[in-house]
């Protein structure tokens, strides 16, 4: 189906021509009201979140937004969230839990923001808290990797009941450039690293780490969003029907089995 090499996919996943989180929010959902701030420090533009409707029903949506032009990209920190971004996301998830709304996360980041302030405000702690809290969040959650799924910064919004990936998206423990530079002291070998890291959507599917690949033939077009919307409606209706204890047990086992030698 898709004959691009791994590194070609990395480039497609990073392309600024792809729809970003706000495009998905605009086209999949209605009545979106953006909610700002983590109530602790600041509002992080890298995370766009709020309440909207999916097929008429309230839903909480949280997206990592890269921005569509230079000005927007500056506003959104190029899609690299600071700790306050992850704390805003957690605040919105807890709000969703309180009001029994399902959660949709749109993941697109090269990684959590790398900076002095991010470390001072506990980037590691913020991500860690999200991993813990998402695991027991008493409402259904679906995460879709729409572009780059960059390491811990992406995982902090991906401890969900279902994780889907766009056909040309990537999900990786480290950037191929970072991997090549650490292992082979040569970032020019990024293409080799990309191949070996098994970071494509197809690899993730084969490895049993995600539930679905969303085809991209008509990405950004009306039919593309209509199809994706229908899949979300169908999946959320299944998840919302489930007993919450059973849902949480399945979510725990979804991650528990990864790398388990017993199974």
């Amino acid at each position: 189906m898709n004959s691009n090499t791994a590194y070609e996919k990395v480039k497609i996943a990073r392309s600024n021509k792809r729809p970003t989180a706000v495009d998905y929010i605009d086209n999949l959902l209605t009545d979106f009201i953006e909610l700002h701030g983590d109530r602790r420090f600041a509002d992080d533009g890298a995370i766009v979140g709020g309440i909207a409707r999916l097929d008429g029903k309230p839903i909480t949506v949280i997206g990592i937004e890269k921005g569509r032009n230079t000005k927007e990209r500056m506003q959104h920190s190029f899609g690299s969230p600071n700790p306050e971004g992850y704390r805003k996301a957690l605040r919105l998830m807890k709000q969703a839990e309180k009001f029994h709304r399902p959660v949709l996360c749109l993941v697109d980041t090269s990684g959590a923001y790398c900076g002095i302030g991010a470390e001072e405000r506990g980037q590691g702690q913020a991500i860690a808290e999200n991993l813990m809290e998402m695991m027991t969040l008493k409402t259904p959650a679906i995460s879709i990797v729409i572009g780059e799924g960059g390491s811990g910064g992406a995982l902090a919004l991906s401890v969900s009941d279902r994780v889907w990936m766009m056909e040309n998206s990537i999900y990786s423990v480290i950037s191929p450039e970072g991997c090549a530079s650490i292992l082979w002291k040569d970032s020019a070998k990024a293409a080799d690293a990309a191949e070996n890291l098994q970071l494509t959507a197809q690899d993730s599917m084969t490895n049993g780490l995600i539930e679905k690949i969303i085809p991209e033939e008509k990405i950004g077009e009306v039919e593309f969003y209509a199809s994706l919307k229908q899949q979300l409606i169908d999946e959320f209706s299944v998840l919302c029907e489930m007993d919450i204890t059973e849902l949480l047990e399945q979510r725990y086992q979804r991650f528990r089995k990864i790398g388990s030698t017993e199974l």
Partner: protein
Amino acid sequence: MAAFLKFLFQSRNELESGGRNSLPVQGDASEPEKVCPNCHKSIPLSRLWANENTCSCGYHFRMSALQRIAYIADEDSFSEMFSDVSTQDPIHFPGYQKKLELTRISSKEDEAVICGTVRIGGVKCCIFIMEQYFMMGSMGTAVGERITRTFEYASEHRLPVVGYTVSGGARMQEGLFSLMQMAKTSGAVKRHSDLGLFYLVILTDPTTGGVTASFAMEGDVILAEPGATVGFAGARVIEQTTRKTLPKGFQTAEFLLDHGFVDAIAPRTVQKEMIASLLKLHSAGEEDEQ
């Protein structure tokens, strides 16, 4: 020999009572020595070992997992678990098998964490101690699985968990499988926590990346060894990305204490007592029943 033993004991007690700076550095001239990167004195190895790998200036040298067990555990109380869990090499990354083989030979360990049950100050608990000499404590599937099982065992037996972290982060040679261990371990920590059980973390040098962004920061109480580097992104990467000079003491244990991410600094002179006290404060008399 008796005089030498006496010397060891004496220095140990003096160090423990806080008389660090008054200790002269002595030793057999033929004995191997290590130079302290802080005060630049040469320290005979036997003396270093007798002082829990600390220099008289207070500098904390790194310690292997086995050394830590000897330091922290009540005598003959450690019993290892899950040592048979090893990686399945999930993505067959080139050169990884070879690297594992060499690391196993040189480190004499088979993975980057040792787990088990132990008594500390009489209190029974589960413990995991990461091993820096095994691929800098990087977390792959085996490390994630062993730590997850430790928390599950502790949940089942209603035991507290004491965890020593040291890690370069997720093990890239296991790709996304490594990243997912962050979620898996965090889930097991959360279940243990939701049962009202106590989890104590001791951050040691260095604790970074995916381990910082998961179970290292999820303790009810988080201690850190003096001067330990603790952070998410690597300092060099931050410097290169931001082109800013990093503040003095950036990403040290003391920096995290100042910013509210660590409860207390735990020098090795008092660390065992601190851990034992905290365990007792959370055991509500349960240690008497075991």
